[in-house]
């Protein structure tokens, strides 16, 4: 037993060292954002010698070349709307496919699975051109709507419902409930975990999406945080690691907080994603 305990202590120590190394870039990001410009360029240490808030003041000031406030607002609008729409569309479809005897059910299910195997790159540029043709580039529409065409959510919820007992719903029907009542009062509460998972996955996917928003956005005012950070990285005059890290902290913290809050569902969702 003593030997086993010893082994356990060694394991925990080793994993902890790895974890610190792993987290180091994030810690470095936060501390660098509080360094002065000259220190951030010459420093080989983690902690600032001289703490400063100037970079945060600069990126949020009215004269800033970065539109951090507007980007944050855009990101909030796009991710929240996008996630709500995806959940709404996918839950309704998955419910109908799993529980109702609707016409064309087999074809729709086949479509859902085939679409999962087609790489996203093949629809990306034509979709961009379609939005261009109807003059909707640089609006919220292309940043929000296309995510609801993804079939993964339908697939996840459909699988979950298929393995979920139907007795409760049948009892509700016998008591004279309508389909809509069954959906909102019986189904929805029971699929809450998988829906939460889908919500978090979708939220982070939209929040962190880069290629698609970069195609359909032209103006600085329409950018999301993820896209904005890319603009700052590519900006030729942005040779200031401290200011860059301040922007990155601002762009990253909301996603990290959401992630930590929903970590439990995220972990579960990956397990439940129908891989086995």
């Amino acid at each position, binding site marked *: 037993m003593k030997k086993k305990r010893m082994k356990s202590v060694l394991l925990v120590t080793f994993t902890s060292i790895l974890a610190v190394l792993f987290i180091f870039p994030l810690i*470095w990001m936060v501390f660098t954002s509080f360094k002065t410009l000259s220190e951030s360029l010459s420093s080989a240490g983690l902690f600032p010698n001289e703490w400063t808030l100037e970079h945060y003041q600069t990126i949020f000031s009215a004269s800033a070349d970065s539109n951090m406030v507007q980007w944050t607002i855009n990101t909030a609008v796009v991710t929240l709307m996008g996630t709500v729409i995806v959940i709404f569309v996918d839950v309704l479809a998955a419910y109908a496919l799993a529980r109702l005897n609707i016409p064309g059910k087999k074809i729709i299910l086949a479509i859902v699975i085939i679409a999962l195997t087609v790489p996203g790159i093949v629809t990306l540029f*034509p979709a961009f051109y379609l939005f261009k043709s109807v003059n909707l580039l640089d609006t919220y529409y292309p940043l929000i709507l296309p995510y609801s065409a993804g079939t993964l959510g339908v697939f996840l919820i459909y699988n979950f419902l298929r393995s979920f007992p139907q007795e409760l719903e049948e009892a509700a029907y016998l008591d004279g409930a309508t389909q809509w009542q069954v959906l909102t009062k019986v189904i929805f509460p029971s699929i809450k975990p998988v829906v939460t998972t889908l919500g978090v996955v979708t939220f982070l996917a939209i929040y962190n999406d880069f290629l698609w928003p970069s195609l359909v956005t032209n103006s600085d005012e329409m950018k999301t945080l993820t896209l904005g950070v890319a603009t700052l990285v590519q900006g030729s005059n942005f040779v200031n690691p401290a200011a860059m890290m301040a922007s*990155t902290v601002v762009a990253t913290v909301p996603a990290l907080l959401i992630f930590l809050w929903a970590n439990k569902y995220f972990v579960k969702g990956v397990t439940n994603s129908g891989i086995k």
Partner: protein
Amino acid sequence: MYMTKRTKWIGFLFVIPFLLSFLIFWLTPLLYGIWISLHDFRLSVGNNGFIGLKNYVDILTPDTLYNNVFMNSLKNTLMFIVLSVPPLILISLGLALLIDNLPKRLKTFFRTVFFLSYAISVTAVSALYLWLFGANGGFINNLLLNTGMISSPINWTGDQPYAWFVIVIATVWWTIGFNMLLFVNALDEVDPNLYEAADLDGASSWNKFRYITLPDIRNISIFVMITTVIASFNLYGQSLLITRGGPSQSTSSLIMGIHATVFGNNQLGVGSAMALLMGLIMMVITGLQYWMSYRNNKEETESGKSEKKRFTRATNVGPTNVSSRPATTIEKKERKVT
């Protein structure tokens, strides 16, 4: 369930939002993309007429402009797959094995820690690694210079092989948590009774890993491999932002090549053809991986490598011992059908 014809069609209303969205934002772009790829289609002025398979022929004819773009970026992308997939699978499996052997509460904690970077966008990851590995004023160079390990700064993002090294490090750090999580969950489901029985019979750690753990996480490993290869195919943000495709286009990826063709050369037709070819290559490789693992799976079952046999090998003793412990296979936890 008893349904009249009317309720059947009312039920159909539930799928309409999804079908509409799928039709507009997936099926139409897919078919439109195929159509565009058969035309001389410019981004600025639109369609210049039907040209059949000319775009594809151009891309596949050696030493033409678009052939160079496509082949060079395809070669770079395959290079990135070769460099990034092994560490993404092996390191994540190693981490998962470490975490699996920790006490339960710490398990949850470390699982979250190593999954944390997954919540960050590719642009933030790139910004971070660009300045960690910056040539002038980057943290790693400062550190190496200050400790005297190098005498002049290394041009991490502008010279090979350092450029690939930084991109691979950034990618591994960014996405390893997802693979690790899949492995940790799979390891969780390996029946502890099998290990206990093997312990009693004095099996070595390696034999337990080889004959109990590995066969049990086989399916998840195949899934991890396929998804990792697909993700590496889609390399874009890291090489765009960290190395800008350089030095001399050596890290320019397929998506960057397609992007340049569409926006730089104004050729939406050629770009769409390239995107379709890329999609086709990805589907073929995924299919091959799937087919090969399926074939192996079948061979193994046919050669009688059942749970019982695995157990025998793990304990490295004769089959007689196995029959005295049939409970190990019977008690095997039932997998969740999802």
